[in-house]
Each structure stands twice: as structure tokens, then as C-alpha cells.
């Protein structure tokens, strides 16, 4: 029987690389196809879920916050977590040591703290693992 679980390890901090958006799109597509998804957010990627992120107006374009309608990364992850609440399930684990050294511990609901052993367990229980590192 096919293993319908995919694990991703991601590393980029918010707004640094298109790789993060690509990861989000892969996660959404997998969930919509009924695939369970595990995410291990390593290094800068733990900041993707920081709760205090806030959108801003765009003075260059002369648009207000409301006109910009610019979701922060924590909003995008929250939407994915909502999509993967039950079956298929999205499990999002932030690397705890990475969180500590960044002071990034105030995060949105649905995110867990973990470490390499959790990543290894998730990968072991998955059909495959996709690593999207910082470049």
C-alpha cells in the first residue's frame, strides 16, 4: 500500500527566497490530494510562523494596509494548518534550538516544538522527504 505521507524540511527565513512559497504550494497541493504532510522548519524557517508578524501599508505604491491585502507568512501557514486539520493532516514542527537562538518562540496555533529526532521519525514514517535548503 502506498505511503500517503510527505515530509518537507525547509530552511529559509520569511521573505528571503521563492523557495518558501514553492514549499507552501507543494504543501497545499499535497493536502488537496489527500496526502498527509509533515514540515520540519529548520533554522530561519522557524520565523515563518511568528505570531507578531503584521502587514504594512505600501508608501511607494501609495496603498493602505487594507488595499495591500498582503498576507504575512504566518497567515499562509495558518491557512495551510487549517486545511490540514484532520485528514489529511499537516504537522508543523519548529526546530526548538533554532527558535531559542532567534527568540522566535511566540508562534501561531497548531505549531509544535521539536528537534532532529522528530524530523527523523517523520521522515522514517513518510513515503519520501523533500529538503528545500537555503541557497
Amino acid at each position, binding site marked *: 500500500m502506498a505511503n500517503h505521507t510527505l515530509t518537507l*524540511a525547509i*530552511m529559509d527565513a520569511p521573505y528571503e527566497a521563492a523557495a518558501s512559497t514553492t514549499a507552501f504550494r507543494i504543501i497545499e497541493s499535497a493536502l488537496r490530494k489527500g496526502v498527509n504532510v509533515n514540515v520540519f522548519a*529548520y*533554522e530561519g524557517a522557524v520565523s515563518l510562523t511568528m505570531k507578531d508578524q503584521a502587514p504594512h501599508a505600501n508608501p511607494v505604491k501609495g496603498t493602505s494596509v487594507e488595499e495591500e491585502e498582503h498576507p504575512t507568512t504566518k497567515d499562509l501557514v495558518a491557512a495551510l494548518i487549517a486545511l490540514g486539520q484532520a485528514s489529511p493532516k499537516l504537522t508543523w514542527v519548529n526546530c526548538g534550538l533554532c527558535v531559542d537562538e532567534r527568540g522566535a518562540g511566540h508562534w501561531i496555533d497548531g505549531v509544535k516544538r521539536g*528537534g*532532529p*529526532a522528530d*524530523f*527523523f*521519525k517523520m*521522515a*522514517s514514517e513518510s513515503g*519520501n*522527504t523533500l*529538503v528545500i*535548503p*537555503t*541557497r
Partner: protein
Amino acid sequence: MKILNIVENAYRATLEEQDDTVLWLSRALKGAGADLSVVLRGNAVNYAVPQACPELKLGTAAIKHPARPHEDLAKLRAKGANVYVVQEDLEDSGIGTERCVADAIPISRARLVDLLMEHDQVWHW
């Protein structure tokens, strides 16, 4: 499950982290029971060369324990992980194998294909 960690992105924040983050993760995974091997390719082949990473002092703050990647390779080997270094990438960087630590096994790009096939999951960092 056999995991092959391919490290290509070298010296990423090694000063700030006092570690290479993927070598660090590899040791942590090995400690968690992973059957894991490491391949150094691209600029990361320089990790196989013994190096003295200087300390850094900025005002009153100091980085006193800089990353020592070649020592991390030795510690990975001591934990039972195979460590390979891509021969052609060494040559591209002008690094002779005689300059590399014995813990890193030179491997040709052609042989790398076999290595990929021998592992269940390949993670390219």
C-alpha cells in the same frame, strides 16, 4: 531507512552558528538512530581540508568556538557514518586528496549514482 545527506552549501552562517547546520543536523540524526551517510560536493568539499577557523571579536562580544568542519566529519565517522567527498569537485577547487582528512572518502561523480541508488532517501542541502 538509509539516508544520504548531500552537503553542497558550504559555510552558511558557520560563524553565527558556530557549526555547519547540516553537519550538526547529521550528527543529531545519527544520535537519534538514523542510518546516515554524508556526501560533500561543490564548495563543501573544502570541509574535508583541515582548517583553523579564527575566533571573532566584535566589541565585547566574541565567537570563541568557531565551526571546525573537518573535526565534525571525524565525529560523524566515529558515530559510524560514512563520509564521502566528490573527487571532481575537489579537483575543480584545486584540492588534492592528500590535503583531505582520512575520514572523507573520495568518490567519483560516476560512483555517486550508485550511492544514490543504495539509499532510501536522498536529502540535498
